[in-house]
């Protein structure tokens, strides 16, 4: 079975944690999915299918237990860290990208989940921001989930955007592969919210990013939010060394920036495909996969496989050259790379954890 393009995701069924059945978020989800079977349960384990793909057809509405705010797992020892914080407002994503680390990370609980108590998460964020007024924070919701792909069901952006718009020392990043931006258009981000898109060469989008919309539709959505007052960002991540990658990424850059105000691009990041042994095993166990495992990946110091360093440097340098041709003022960074690669690519490695400070400072 192949996954068609998902314009607005609709699950096959919804499981609701009984204690949360009367929450505002649950009521919104129920109202927007009147035709979909709903099961109100005490034990949510019944909602978890054994199969990762089946999990992407189920929605679980539940309370989040534990901490909402965490450090981005990319901050591995030996890598230059951009000090990104992740706020978990949901878990898993309706899209089914072949390279996605969630295939490993969420292998035992793959159902798509949204959390009813995001207000608790915002209180957590508020406490951190108040405790450190001297620091600026870059916080995203798009690490364990797509920030916007479920927004037509949850309206979470309507809680998140006003909250961050009123905070002086934080920027929220909503990272997505969708064009679910309607809710954003009537909100004022006050330059404290960046909407960003994960992007790739068109052939990679078509082959490796099952269920996602084409690149041109992501760009059209970016143009809409930019016109509504948001800064936008783009993440070329993962860069994949496929046949014709130079043409592919050049085309993607041309397509993306053709119709945008590059002066209102908050940042562009580049990250090479990386694969843990467990992710590789998870990908191999899936029935459908693209040509991902055929790329020449070798193990690095952090145990993750990437294309060999000289090729990564070449890819980064090419893309940076093209991005600077578009507008050399756009803030650029690379993700999960050691200082040595930063030096080769940018001529310098930023002191640890200053990347976020720089990026946020450049927003002002």
């Amino acid at each position, binding site marked *: 079975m192949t996954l068609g393009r998902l314009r607005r995701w609709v699950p096959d069924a919804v499981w609701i944690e009984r204690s949360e059945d009367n929450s505002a978020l649950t009521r919104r989800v129920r109202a927007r999915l009147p035709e979909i079977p709903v099961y109100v349960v005490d034990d949510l384990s019944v909602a978890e299918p054994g199969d990762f793909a089946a999990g992407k057809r189920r929605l679980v509405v539940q309370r989040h237990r534990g901490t909402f705010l965490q450090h981005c797992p990319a901050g591995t020892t030996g890598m230059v860290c951009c000090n990104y914080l992740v706020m978990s407002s949901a878990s898993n994503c309706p899209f089914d990208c072949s390279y996605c680390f969630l295939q490993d990370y969420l292998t035992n609980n793959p159902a798509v989940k949204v959390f009813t108590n995001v207000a608790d998460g915002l209180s957590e964020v508020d406490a951190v921001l108040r405790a450190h007024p001297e620091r600026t924070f870059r916080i995203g919701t798009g690490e364990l989930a797509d920030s916007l792909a479920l927004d037509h069901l949850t309206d979470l952006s309507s809680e998140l955007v006003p909250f961050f718009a009123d905070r002086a020392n934080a920027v929220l990043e909503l990272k997505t592969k969708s064009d679910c931006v309607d809710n954003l258009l009537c909100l004022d981000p006050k330059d404290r919210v960046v909407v960003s898109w994960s992007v790739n060469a068109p052939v990679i989008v078509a082959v490796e990013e099952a269920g996602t919309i084409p690149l041109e539709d992501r760009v059209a959505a970016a143009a809409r939010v930019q016109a509504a007052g948001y800064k936008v960002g783009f993440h070329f991540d993962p860069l994949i060394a496929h046949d014709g990658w130079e043409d592919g990424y050049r085309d993607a850059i041309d397509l993306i920036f053709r119709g945008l105000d590059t002066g209102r691009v908050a940042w562009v990041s580049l990250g090479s495909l990386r694969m843990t042994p467990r992710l590789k095993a998870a990908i*191999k166990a899936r029935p459908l996969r693209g*040509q991902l*495992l*055929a790329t*020449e990946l*070798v*193990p*690095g*110091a952090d145990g993750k496989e990437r294309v*060999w*360093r*000289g*090729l990564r*440097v*070449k890819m980064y*340098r090419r893309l940076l050259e093209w991005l600077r041709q578009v507008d050399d003022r756009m803030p650029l960074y690379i993700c999960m790379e050691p200082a*040595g690669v930063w030096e*080769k690519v940018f001529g310098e490695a930023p002191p640890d954890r200053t990347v976020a400070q720089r990026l946020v400072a450049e927003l002002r």
Partner: protein
Amino acid sequence: MTDSEAQTAIRAYAGARNYSAATTERWLRLDAGDGGALLQLAAELRLGENQLRDLWDWAEETAERDGVTLHHVLAAEPIGAARARKLGRNDKLKAIKAALRRLRFPQLTDVEDRLADLVRTMQLPRTVRVALPEHLEGDQVRIEITATSKTAWRTAAAALLAAAESPACTELFTLLGEAP
């Protein structure tokens, strides 16, 4: 060999070598041709589980990339040539692994070959050993001098100094820094 004979033989081999259930099950899920080819290789080299898995993963990824079967990869010319060499078990395993790595990582091994050529053109004495970063993951070259006398030391140092001034040295670091 029929499917059932192949499965029996795989079970027997994996059982005798204490392979994990997961690896054995993965092996048994292969079609008879692929499973049999893997068994032949394993038996020929008396492979333990981890040794087999390394070769298997590379062969499988190569097969997937090239749209051929696993047994096709294991029968490919460079692998066949390595298997045919009159070598002891460990050296043969090393040769097969190198041949398979070459199939799996053609771009990387091309660059590694080019770097090795560059080191050769420097004509360093045998007392100087140049080690490139593993999988070229890095740009640090490790140079080791072995000297048993002041003269040998001076000779090695002079050769190294000359090599450092050569175009080969420049090209070496350029290649390590960025893919061609």
